[in-house]
């Protein structure tokens, strides 16, 4: 049974028609993983034992009860920076190679309550720092569409698991584009909600003012369904916002006639791959054909976004990663004579290059004499970027851009130059800085057959408009154009 062609509703229907059991699907899936994941490296940890136990439970429930959630029995992959009690969580790092969390992330708990089957923990760039999954402390994941290419990052494993049919849906996290960019590279749907919409409890913090959990799926409808389940106020997350979760599943069937779409002129400049530009422009044309009104907008501070992000994110990361010191959990290297030596040796051995680079950069930006010029300055530019969007959203409902300047690049192509890797985040980063929701949907392929992604950005807490328009785009054939 190939999950590549099954959506949540499709599989749920098969269960209810008794054509297949959850246990059969899960067993079949682990067989598939054995056959193809040796090459793809999507999963870091398989949860076979607990998955089969859960599958049996769900099978019993499906036999006896009528009103069961469509998520029951659906195989889900979870990025390995979200805690599940008793199951190894590495964050893609050697420093947590054998760590088992004592609690479960709220977003994962909510899926489990609906009967979802957690298949395994997926590969990522170490501590979510990266745009290609090549920074994983273990191995790179390969793009299922072309195994010489990256799946994107940092949620490369989760994106690839959905694209390869190794799960039906997945959860990832997005700090600077880490859901949207791999969704674009792998040809699936990936969404980052408004900051505060989904609880961060149980998500290992990279940059606390930017991180959000979000879903991967093949269709917009599944994303709407997942978002409904994982969203909502959580008292365990002090940044969780108490706004009601909308009934997105019902509202996505509404019309988009007259929806105003802004195309920011600063996003269509040189450096944008011509195939990507072509496909996204066709996507915008399709949006117009289905009834949207297209107009140009300006986000004048776009060019400063990457600099702003790499100061704020690294500063926050340097603080968040200070806890990995070998004292209470994780790797401990105690060859030295003192506590300080233990800290330094542990962190030198346990952290990869990119993580070290970002911690150092963040520490520098926060250090005495540089704090005002770098970190504080970046926070002020962040306000300017936020204002750009607030101005634009006075005129339009959605902003549409390419998700990434290129399609999936080859493994090893950008690892020699950190800055060039950072520049691939240019279109996704502003969403995180401004706390806005954004989705990436497939939008055709380039001349090598690699997926192109189109991004729709909405105003704060207006996931409804994003999902509605993205759904109509999908229905009109936008994904395959």
């Amino acid at each position: 049974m190939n999950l590549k062609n099954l959506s949540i509703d499709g599989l749920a229907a098969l269960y209810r028609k008794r054509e297949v059991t959850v246990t059969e699907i899960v067993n079949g899936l682990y067989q598939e993983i054995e056959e193809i994941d040796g090459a793809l490296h999507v999963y870091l940890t398989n949860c076979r034992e607990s998955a089969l136990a859960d599958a049996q439970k769900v099978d019993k429930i499906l036999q006896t009860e009528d009103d069961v959630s469509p998520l029951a029995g659906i195989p889900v992959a979870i990025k390995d920076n979200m805690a599940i009690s008793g199951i190894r969580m590495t964050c893609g790092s050697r420093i947590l190679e054998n760590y088992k969390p004592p609690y479960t992330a709220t977003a994962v708990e909510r899926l489990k309550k609906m009967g979802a089957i957690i298949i395994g923990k997926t590969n990522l760039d170490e501590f979510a720092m990266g745009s290609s999954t090549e920074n994983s402390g273990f191995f790179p994941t390969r793009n299922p569409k072309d195994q010489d290419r990256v799946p994107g990052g940092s949620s490369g494993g989760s994106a690839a698991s959905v694209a390869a049919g190794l799960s039906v849906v997945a959860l990832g996290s997005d700090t600077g584009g880490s859901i949207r960019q791999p969704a674009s590279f792998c040809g699936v749907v990936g969404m980052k909600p408004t900051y505060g919409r989904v609880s961060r409890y149980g998500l290992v913090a990279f940059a606390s003012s930017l991180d959000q959990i979000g879903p991967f799926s093949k269709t917009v409808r599944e994303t709407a369904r997942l978002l409904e389940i994982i969203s909502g106020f959580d008292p365990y997350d002090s940044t969780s916002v108490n706004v009601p979760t909308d009934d997105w599943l019902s509202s996505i069937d509404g019309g988009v006639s007259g929806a105003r779409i802004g195309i920011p002129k600063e996003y269509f400049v040189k450096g944008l791959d011509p195939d990507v530009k072509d496909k996204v422009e066709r996507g915008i044309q399709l949006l117009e054909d289905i009834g949207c009104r297209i107009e140009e907008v300006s986000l004048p501070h776009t060019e400063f976004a990457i600099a702003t992000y790499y100061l704020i994110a690294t500063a926050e990361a340097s603080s968040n990663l200070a806890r990995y010191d070998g004292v209470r959990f994780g790797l401990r290297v105690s060859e030295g004579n003192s506590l300080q030596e233990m800290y330094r040796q542990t962190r030198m051995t346990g952290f990869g290059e990119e993580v070290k680079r970002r911690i150092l950069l963040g520490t520098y930006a926060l250090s005495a004499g540089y704090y005002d010029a770098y970190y504080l300055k970046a926070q002020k530019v962040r306000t300017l970027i936020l204002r750009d969007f607030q101005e634009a959203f006075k005129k339009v409902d959605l902003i549409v851009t390419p998700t990434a300047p290129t399609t999936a690049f080859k493994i090893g192509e950008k690892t020699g130059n950190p800055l060039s890797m950072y520049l691939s985040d240019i279109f996704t980063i502003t969403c995180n800085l401004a706390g806005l929701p954004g989705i990436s949907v497939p939008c055709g392929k380039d001349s090598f057959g690699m997926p192109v992604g189109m991004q729709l950005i909405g105003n704060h807490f207006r996931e409804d408009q994003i999902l509605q328009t993205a759904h109509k785009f999908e229905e009109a054939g936008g994904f395959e154009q």
Partner: protein
Amino acid sequence: MKISTTDLKQVAQLANLEVAEHERQQLAEQLSQIVNYVEQLKGLDTDNVEPTAQVQINTTPPKRKDNVEERTGSSNTHNKGSLFKVPRVITER
């Protein structure tokens, strides 16, 4: 702004990170390149702009009763109950 290997050593000390001798030069160069890139923010006029530390700050975060929740933590081999054994903290007289 050029970051020297001496600067790097100081920052590494602040971050409790050790950087191997053979990595120092390249890392200093990479960081210099990144810092040079982010310097472009200096040209922007932000005189009357408030910094944004976090978007949508909960102006009235919810409160709860101060109850202690017992939780069995994941242990490494160094703990005895709630205490953790570490190498000596004070190394100088």
